[in-house]
């Protein structure tokens, strides 16, 4: 089931500890999965017997930003887990951290 990704929305993995926050995403419907299963929005709970797909277990790292190839969709990992993050069938990659001048 495709979902809209609203900036600020939280997504939880159905099969691992991964949590993501939407930083930005153009309007539209997305298929967002972690560990092989659709991620859960809001108060949704994991389906009975949901299990991590071993082929989708690259893992996520806290604090990293996951982006699509064009960097139009950006998701911040607020909690790391075992699953891989896949958007519309394509694995998302970690965005290169920018050196931001420290202003405070």
């Amino acid at each position, binding site marked *: 089931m495709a979902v809209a990704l609203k900036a*600020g929305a939280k997504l939880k993995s159905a099969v691992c500890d991964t949590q993501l*926050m939407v930083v930005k995403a153009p309007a539209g419907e997305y298929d967002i999965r972690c560990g092989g299963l659709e991620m859960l929005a*809001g108060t949704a709970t994991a389906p009975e017997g949901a299990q991590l797909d071993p082929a989708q277990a690259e893992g996520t790292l806290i604090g990293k930003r996951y982006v699509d190839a064009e960097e139009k969709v950006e998701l911040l990992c607020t909690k790391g887990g075992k699953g891989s993050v896949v958007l519309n069938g394509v694995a998302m990659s970690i965005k290169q951290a920018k050196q931001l001048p420290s202003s*405070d």
Partner: protein
Amino acid sequence: MNIATILDMAAEAFGDRIAVVSGSTRMTYAELRAAAQRAAGAIRASKASYVALLDVNTPAAPVAIFAAAYAGVPYVPLNYRLTKAEINELVERVAPAYLVSSGDYRALLEPRADIQVVDRADFLNLPESLAEGVPEPGDDPRAVAVQLFTSGTTGKPKAAILRHENLMSYIVGTVEFAAAEEDDAIVVTVPPYHIAGISSALSSTYACRRMVQLDGFDARSWLEACRSENVSNAFLVPTMLSRIVDHLSEQGEGARLPALRSIAYGGGKMPLSAIQRAMSLFPQVDFTNAYGLTETSSTVAVLGPDDHRAAAASEDPLVRKRLSSVGKATGAVEIAIRDEDGKPLAANQPGLVFVRGGQVSGEYLSLGSALDADGWFSTRDRGYLDDEGFLFLEGRADDVIVRGGENISPGEIEDVLLSHPAVADAAVVAVPDEQWGEGVGAAVVLKENAKASVAELQELVKQRLRSSRVPQAIVFRDALPYNELGKVLRRVIRQEFAEAQPTASA
């Protein structure tokens, strides 16, 4: 979305790292989260609709920011330098509240049934049991995270509100998670009721950086704290940096701050001469100028270390000039210049500074949003963008001198006056003028034992700028009036000129 996530992430990834140092107190990120969760339990039980803080900077400030977020109520730090009557008026506006205070500040509070006052020491040592059963923090991005009373010069203070989405947008847009090295530390000298105090606590937590708190500012204790805690980063308002530079030159003391890598400054105009002196005194330090407002969740433009060095080293006067700019818009916002009618202006055309972006709240309690239909916020600052997008500020729109229809910015005249070797401080304001409507007045403080005549200063401005910029009235003062954060109180100086006889045009 909730700013509590910032602390959750830091505690999860670097729970053992020291979060905050205050005197002999040291608290790790895990301890900071535990304290905030205990406090959240106490806040929920109190049924308060605000968490207020009336205190200097101590670990209670970051604990209160995050405790309010976990409990789902706004955090409202109060200015402890206000009068007793003013403080109690603000307290009334946030009732029912859970209010953290201590000592002399606590004594200023009139008892009220709808205010639960908690002593700072008790607040930091609440029983473990309070953390049990505290539900997950709320997820509504539109919920109010912080409310700040602005120091309105007229009328009642306005309550600016910053929502979780504004502050989160600022942090995610300007900081990388865990960007700090293990040994990094920032010394914090801005009071907790200032937007920079809040953004600093959030940024440092997200960067997993140690915060070293001082409960006030003087150059000596700042230097001591930097040395004893191996401080790597500092944020200062311009007067603080000037006082540190003065202190070191008076004592003939070397900086001796080998760990210090970065100084960020903001919160007011930095005189060109002061930043030049600071750069030569701390050649190894990266300087960053940050410009922002309460209503924009802090920083919206940054003049970074490379910009500082490029400007200082350049032969090109237009590039050199950038040392007195506030840099370019951060990646998280857009900046535009418009005229009084709202029409966009081209590069190098001065007008009003507008800002747009997720971190811009531009919103006041019960007054609503000050954003236009397209989300732009008028800062009420005047300025222009140069060809490469560097923002030059000319002062508050209300401070601009309108002389016979010509807009004159006080800042450029002040910079010229300050370049005179005898001048220690200068403020330029509008003075009443019969012919031109407004004219240029200057209050000047001379250095000890130094001399300069009115005519000499007028000639200097005439040569560097042009005759319309020449102050027609110059008064000498022992000191200029400043607020506690080093902002010069132009309205007080304007008042003094206004009360004197209208001056004839030069």
